[in-house]
């Protein structure tokens, strides 16, 4: 199975009452219906091309027209450039870069231009674009189709990064991203697309920069997002059995991340474990660990733990691919070690 076949494979994993594919489709449709300035562009995204390789944009071009919902050539620099330009004259384009690894051919447009034009123009212009991109290990897509690169963008001033883990957040974050006056990257995880979840209420927003307490606890704070949030959730059971009450935080926004919510939790638990799919070295967890270690100097019961993908390209072979990313079992074990260590 691959990115391109998730759509077809869909029926296999039944979808009730909703899922992230439906949520993002609904968010785009609602935004386009409310505001004629909202545009959608990307490879294969219009209905003649099947409404996207995963079906996320299905129905949009039929409803709003191909002038507003445009399939593009395979030209990522031209895609982001078109989005930037249109945004400079009042439009709110949502551009799809099919897979996150393909942002590598559009980094100049994203980093040197989208993120910087407001600043370099002294505030005369701004770039209200959304960049949707999918990624994630789990489908044996290999080394060039699975990377999590959010740390790169979080390290660039002028762009925000969000990564929903469920349909409600996917809808609300997408609406907020479209409302936002600056570039926002929305990272969608492939294996999560068809997981059933609660349906979002049309029109709702999830504020960018605001985390969610996914489970309340007192012994350790676990910070995660995207697919890893679900692995952490699974780990909670094991932790409960071990008599450990973990507070699970869905970060939802990586840049700017919600320091207040995380710090409030860590102030209570005195321990923190950060879990993401991106490789650990120089990854998102490093910034969070650095901030917490500083903010809670001398007050932590255990060192801040970080779990990320092992430091290697994503392998194809299933056993290796599975071992590459943190799993519920290892997450639980690590959390237990941290709690016992700081007991």
């Amino acid at each position: 199975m691959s990115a391109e076949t998730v759509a077809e494979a869909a029926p296999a994993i039944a979808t009730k009452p909703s899922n992230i594919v439906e949520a993002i489709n609904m968010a785009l449709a609602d935004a386009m219906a409310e505001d004629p300035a909202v545009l959608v562009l990307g490879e294969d995204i219009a209905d003649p091309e099947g409404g996207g390789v995963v079906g996320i944009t299905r129905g949009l071009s039929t409803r709003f027209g191909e002038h507003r919902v445009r399939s593009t050539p395979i030209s990522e620099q031209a895609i982001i450039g078109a989005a930037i330009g249109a945004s400079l004259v009042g439009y709110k384009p949502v551009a799809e870069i099919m897979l996150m690894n393909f942002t590598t051919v559009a980094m100049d447009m994203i980093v040197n231009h989208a993120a910087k034009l407001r600043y370099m123009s002294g505030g005369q212009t701004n770039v209200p674009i959304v960049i949707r991109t999918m990624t994630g290990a789990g489908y044996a897509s290999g080394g060039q189709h699975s990377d999590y690169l959010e740390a790169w963008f979080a390290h660039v001033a002028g762009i925000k990064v969000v990564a929903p883990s469920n349909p409600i957040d996917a809808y609300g974050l997408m609406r907020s991203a479209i409302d936002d006056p600056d570039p926002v990257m929305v990272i969608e995880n492939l294996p999560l697309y068809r997981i059933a979840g609660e349906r979002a209420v049309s029109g709702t927003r999830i504020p960018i920069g605001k985390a969610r307490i996914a489970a309340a606890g007192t012994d350790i704070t676990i910070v995660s997002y995207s697919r890893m949030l679900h692995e952490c959730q699974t780990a909670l059971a094991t932790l409960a059995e071990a008599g450990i009450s973990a507070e699970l935080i869905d970060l939802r926004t990586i840049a700017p991340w919600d320091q207040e919510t995380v710090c409030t939790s860590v102030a209570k638990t005195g321990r923190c474990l950060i879990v993401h799919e991106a490789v650990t070295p120089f990854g998102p967890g490093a910034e969070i660990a650095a901030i917490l270690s500083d903010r809670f100097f001398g007050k932590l019961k255990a060192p801040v733990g970080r779990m990320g993908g092992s430091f290697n390209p994503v392998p194809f072979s299933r056993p290796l691919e599975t071992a590459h990313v943190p799993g519920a079992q290892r997450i639980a074990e690590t959390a237990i070690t941290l709690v016992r260590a700081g007991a």
Partner: protein
Amino acid sequence: MSKPQIPDAATQLEIFRRMALLKGNDVRSRKVIGSGRLMMPYYSYRGQEVIPAALSVNLTDEDYLVTIYRGIHDMLAKGLPLKDLWAEIAGRVDGTCKGKGGPMHLTYPKKGIMVTTGIVGSSMPIANGIAWGSQLSGNGRVTVATFGDAASNIGAFHESLNLASVWKLPVIFLCQNNRWGEHTAYAKATSVARISDRAAAYGMPGIHVDGNDPFAMYAAAREAVERARAGEGPTLIEAMTFRFYGHVFGDADAYMDPAEKAEHVAADPYPIFRARLIADGVANETDLAAIEADVEARLDEAVAFALASPFPDLSELTTDVFGEAA
């Protein structure tokens, strides 16, 4: 373009032998994957077999190939062993890449298969570098970069053809124009009627050829190979063909006009060439049936070998990231 050269009987038979291997392998791949025994992104090349078959008979094992996710046909024609292929796409330790690369990153330097990329357009810049190496060492080797029609709209195509022309590199840019880029029809994404016409923008010869006609494809490839070997620089070949089974396994081609597809499938170059060889007396039914039977036997063996091969040890997860500094 010098007058087309008809391959001799032995070469015709060799082209068919490679086509039979390629076709047989695709049919088997879809069968095995469809049965759920293997899981991977599989990009069927069924319908495009003539191109690499007729190209590769003009190449030696020392010549180089840089191909793409839809490139297993290119690699088999270049000599990729079936067992190594199947073990790799099964993610097993006996695969070309110990299972770490998978179908999109098959690599086999022993036969000049240097890189398989999953990034549209990225075969070309790397092929230039390999060709630069041949130019420097004067080893007379040719490098072929394959890519699709839609890839001709990405920046890497442009930068690569310009550099190859300015540096007069011994490289061939082989565009397999199957008329679709994922779900998007050629004309909706491409601003020129023929990709071969883009060659003029780089002062490079461009050849537009029926990639489903073994003789025409053979002649086009031969012309380009001779030019490269002679140190006369790069060639852009646009080989017209068609993709029979959608973009990737599982893609039902719903966005495609069934009539268009039916027409191309009806013109399947495999049975046509097969019949022609018999009609021309190059081979008889028994010969060709034997070739096909041999392919099936080798496939049985390769699939069995692959499925019996162990998965890589978990220690392989973090090896091959860096080498040992000398």
